[in-house]
């Protein structure tokens, strides 16, 4: 018990360190003292100050919020669906957001992220609701396997339609290919302010689900025997996941792998109790995401590699190492 508390504290320090790195490092390194001045006595005339306030601060805050959201969403989904391979894309969130974004660009000629951010969120939410509805066909409601099948079905259908549209609408493709990579760059404080309320609500909801998730991970019959309202628990978990992953995807585009690996990482440290996995996931997510973002800034100057790519390139080998050392929950 003590060990986990001290590890949690260590993670908080690590997160603060990464936050500072995110603010200072980049194609144009800004010393820490300048960061402090920019935050406390902002002077629009000083270039370094503008870099901090207009570029790095929104980026860092988004990394913090989105990282936490994705980590928590993945953990919540893995617990609720009893599937260690679940991640937000399994519920069709990425496919739904992509579909609505593509529609928005094609039908309404939208070009600004701030405009199609709501479409992305709506698409993600509708796709998840669709998946839930399809999985509820028949008795017993949405069981884990049915959710996975429904998710795969809806994702397949939406992906096909998106491909068809992209192939026939070159201008849409030209915009979409940048959104679909997932990046923290190019988003200003407006975006942060738009998604912040959703992220906060989702995080609070997810953190409150610790006990419920521990119950859901057991056998259905055993859980019901212990008085768990499994249907309600799973619904709340789904709601938290939609809010978190939907808002995150809307803000920065689809970022794969964070939702999948962070819960496993957390579990390898804390053990199987979700009361602990959730806070650890909430801290590990932003650490991973912001670290990836910083790496992306430094690796190909003066350009950047988007964070969605770096997380896959760093996260996947790490995941493979975990698999080889048998640190993952067996099915």
């Amino acid at each position, binding site marked *: 018990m003590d060990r986990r508390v001290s590890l949690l504290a260590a993670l908080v320090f690590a997160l603060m360190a990464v936050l500072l790195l995110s603010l200072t490092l980049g194609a144009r390194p800004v010393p820490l003292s300048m960061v402090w001045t920019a935050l406390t006595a902002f002077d629009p005339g000083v270039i370094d100050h503008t870099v901090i306030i207009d570029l790095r601060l929104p980026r860092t805050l988004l990394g913090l919020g989105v990282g936490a959201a994705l980590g928590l969403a993945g953990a919540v989904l893995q617990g609720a669906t009893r599937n260690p*391979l679940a991640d937000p894309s399994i519920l069709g969130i990425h496919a739904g957001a992509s579909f609505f974004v593509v529609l928005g660009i094609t039908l309404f000629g939208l070009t600004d992220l701030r405009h199609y951010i709501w479409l992305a969120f709506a698409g993600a939410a509708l796709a998840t609701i669709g998946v839930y509805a*399809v*999985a509820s*066909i*028949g*008795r*017993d409601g949405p*069981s884990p*396997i*049915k959710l996975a*099948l*429904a998710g*795969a*079905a*809806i994702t*397949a*259908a939406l*992906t*096909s*339609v998106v*491909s*068809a549209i*992209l*192939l*026939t609408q*070159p201008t849409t*493709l*030209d915009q979409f*290919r*940048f959104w*679909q*990579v997932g990046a923290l760059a190019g988003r200003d404080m407006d975006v942060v302010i738009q998604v912040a309320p959703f992220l906060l609500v989702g995080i609070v909801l997810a953190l409150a689900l610790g006990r419920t998730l521990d119950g859901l991970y057991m056998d259905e019959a055993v859980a019901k025997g212990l008085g768990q309202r499994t249907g309600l628990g799973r619904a709340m978990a789904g709601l938290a996941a939609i809010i978190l992953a939907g808002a995150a995807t809307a803000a920065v585009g689809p970022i*794969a*792998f964070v939702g*999948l690996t962070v819960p496993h990482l957390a579990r390898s440290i804390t053990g199987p109790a979700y009361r602990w996995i959730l806070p650890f996931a909430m801290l590990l997510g932003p650490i991973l995401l912001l670290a990836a973002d910083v790496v992306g800034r430094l690796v190909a100057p003066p350009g950047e*590699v*988007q964070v*969605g*790519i770096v*997380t*896959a*390139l760093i*996260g*996947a*080998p790490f*995941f*493979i190492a975990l*698999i*080889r050392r048998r640190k*993952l929950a*067996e*099915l």
Partner: protein
Amino acid sequence: MAVTALIDAGAIRQLRHHRSRHRLRVGLTLGAVLLVAFALAMVLGDYPVPLPDLLGALLSPLTGVAHPGIDFIVLNVRLPRAVLAVLSGAAFGLSGSIFQTLLRNPLASPDIIGISQGASAAAVFCIIVLGWSGTPLALGALAGALLTALTVYALAWRDGVSPYRVVLIGIAIAAILSACIAYLFTRARLTQVQEALTWLVGSLNAAGTTQIGPLALALVVLVPAALLLSRALFVLQLGDDTARALGARVELTRLGLMLTGVALAAFATAAVGPVAFVAFVAGPIARQLLGAGRPVLLPAMLVGAITMLGADLLAQHALPATQLPVGVVTGLFGALFLIWLLISANRAGNL
């Protein structure tokens, strides 16, 4: 006791014959459906070719009677396309069925171990960075698929290979490759991205000897290999221990079958791109038609070929003004199939 056993032996033989006759009937029906689909693929189009003319065109290399227009459409456009559809569909179907039987999971498919992403990443790289197309592109895609399969297997090897570990590592490798593709998409010119996207969705548009030749050769080698190994697959289905107890070389058979399945998927993907879901649906449909309980390798080939032909027919003729790539239709078909799976298994109480 001996007499009773003799009577029952006759009953056992009758049971066996009844079952194999049923299998033959289903196989012949599937063959007939394939023939009809093939004929439709040759007849339909912007220039409908009536059946007599079609036969004339097909036989014209032998008879020497030529109608240049019709002959061109039939022999140079529709015939290669239909043949490519049949061969690639059969390859995908067989590959998927092998994986599903080996992994004892009806939801398995060669995609999960990252082969399609391997071929795709290699193809996108070849198109965008190297500017290749045609045969070099297909070879590049093939190399990508095989290299990925090797990497996944090597990484999953630890005193033998557990299917679960292969799936997990396949997912990780697929993520890396998808990221590479997305990165290339942001760095390339739009026209290159379009070309790459067309390949990625999977289409039968560029059907010619360069695509058909290697695939046909591969099938000539791999299909008999699969059939030979399927004998041991019969007992491998009973679990490793029981299979070993019955005298099967478990690790060797599994390795051989995996190699065959991977090679089939790799060659098919190199020829037509990663056409979604054909590998996934062929096995379950074949099992549904034949009754489960034994590997359904040959029937899955037929189902795969029919699916590919049918999807391509829909892709070409369903929408009035546009021709869609076949991958879009198979994706939608796959979605419907998954929902059907959900409903039917739910009704049977399996979920």
